[in-house]
């Protein structure tokens, strides 16, 4: 059910590097957890609506009014790298 290729595919989707050893371990651990989770496959859930919100609440909307947000300086204060008053990142095709 969960094999090495599945783990590598999911890790790629999650943007998560895994070493070979971690891939092996993940195959076993995810498989083990999913085995327990699969008990919900046995339940008859025909016609049962999925939960969207646990407490009944109508649309929680606010007026669309401009308000103050973080300054550029505050927003950049915690960034690992900054260039030209923006977040600096490596090139997508180095």
């Amino acid at each position, binding site marked *: 059910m969960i094999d090495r290729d599945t783990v590598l595919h999911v890790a790629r989707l999650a943007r*998560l590097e895994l070493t070979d050893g971690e891939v092996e371990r*993940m195959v076993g651990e995810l498989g083990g957890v999913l085995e327990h989770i699969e008990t*919900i496959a046995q339940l008859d859930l025909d016609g049962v609506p999925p939960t969207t919100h646990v407490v009944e609440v109508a649309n929680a909307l606010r007026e669309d009014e401009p308000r103050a947000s973080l300054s550029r300086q505050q927003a950049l*204060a915690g960034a690992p790298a900054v260039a030209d008053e923006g977040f600096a990142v490596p090139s997508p095709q180095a």
Partner: protein
Amino acid sequence: MSGLIDLSASQAAAAIKRGEVDPGALFDLYRQRAATDSLNAYTWVAEQAPKAPPQPSLGGVPLAVKDLFCTEGVPSQSGSRILEGYRPPYTATVVERLAQAGAPLLGKTNQDEFAMGSSNENSAFGPVLNPWDRARVPGGSSGGSAAAVAAGLAPWAIGTDTGGSIRQPAALCGIVGLKPTYGAVSRYGMIAFASSLDQAGPLTRDVSDAALLLSHMVGERDPLDATSLDFPEPIAMPSRRTLAGIRLGVPSELTGEGIEPGVLGAFQATLELARQLGATVESCALPHAPHALAAYYVLAPAECSSNLARFDGVRYGYRAADPDDLLSMYERTRHDGFGVEVRRRVMLGTYVLSSGYYEAYYGRAQRVRTKIAADFAAAFERFDFVVMPTSPCVAFELGSKLADPYAMYLNDFLSVPASLAGIPALSIPNGLASPPGGGTPLPVGFQLAGPAFSESQMLDVAFALEQALGFDGRAVRS
């Protein structure tokens, strides 16, 4: 000065109001205790007492705050390396409200990374030790908050509960922990784990402290959190001495198999005590509760994988050095920045949400969630509260459940049903029990779950039980 530490937070607040205790001296006393903490309960401690606002309701009794609440200019890492060095530019609404009410920030407490864990062993800051037995875990994920309160390193604390992360550590440390109704407390400024489940609540030495702290956490809805709700009425201070007229339901699914004999023994004794106090105690059914853990371990990781997508090394925190390109920067930052359990949950969540599996896992789990909420609603037609143990076990030894992820997840099977239903639940200490195989007796927790917004009534019932149980929650454990 040691007498001050023995005061509950409510007693300290009252003593300040009467002019018998100086709030600055109280803050300094706790600040010194927190700064010399040997349980690894704190990740940051305030350097000095803040200037107190005039006549606040809580008097200036200092508050320990779980690391994942954003606090302006103060480290807030949610127990993760990936937020190394992060100092938020704003403060969480609930922390702000409590500071305004007179509970200033004493320190930030250790936790499982991004609140994922039941032992506080998944922290980038290392594990927290249980003050009752330092070879054992304090529970998690709010383990630092629970240990700090139990050890007298804080008068009171706040934590967050997604599947039991307030109630379970409260039980394992012998204190009171309350998870409010979903939406009752603003989540603005809480570093998110699973947004449909996360809820902030108090961890305190007794029920009165929990009521007092909660009364300042709820109120008007927060315009900054679209899921927050107006609390229908102010939280009442508990005073009940009997349980006459109170109907307690005991779900057979959550009071038998998989629970340590010592925990079950304490639970049965508390039921008997409730009967003596005048409550009616009868069995009830939560037929879908046995499937709650499976549904939870689909939904919480799914939401986690989505929420944690924001940690990419671009805007804050840790970034891997010398990446080849943008993609490798993301992938290596997330590998190095996240711990083992967080990686596991990101993988699990990404898998159950991935194309071809979504309906089989996530869709079904959301339907199971509907059934679990319906089970509780049916139970509340006959009963005021549903009761069960909080944790299936007393505090276990450090390292003993790390090899098997599912063995760790099983700690949550009594606490996740109320989480999925979005209803309030609280844990009070109801005695001590020896771990299997013997040893020093350790605290056990008794859990009540009630309908949405029943917090005041639940605290009142818990107060009556607390008085009759006579557990000394104010005693400092070290």
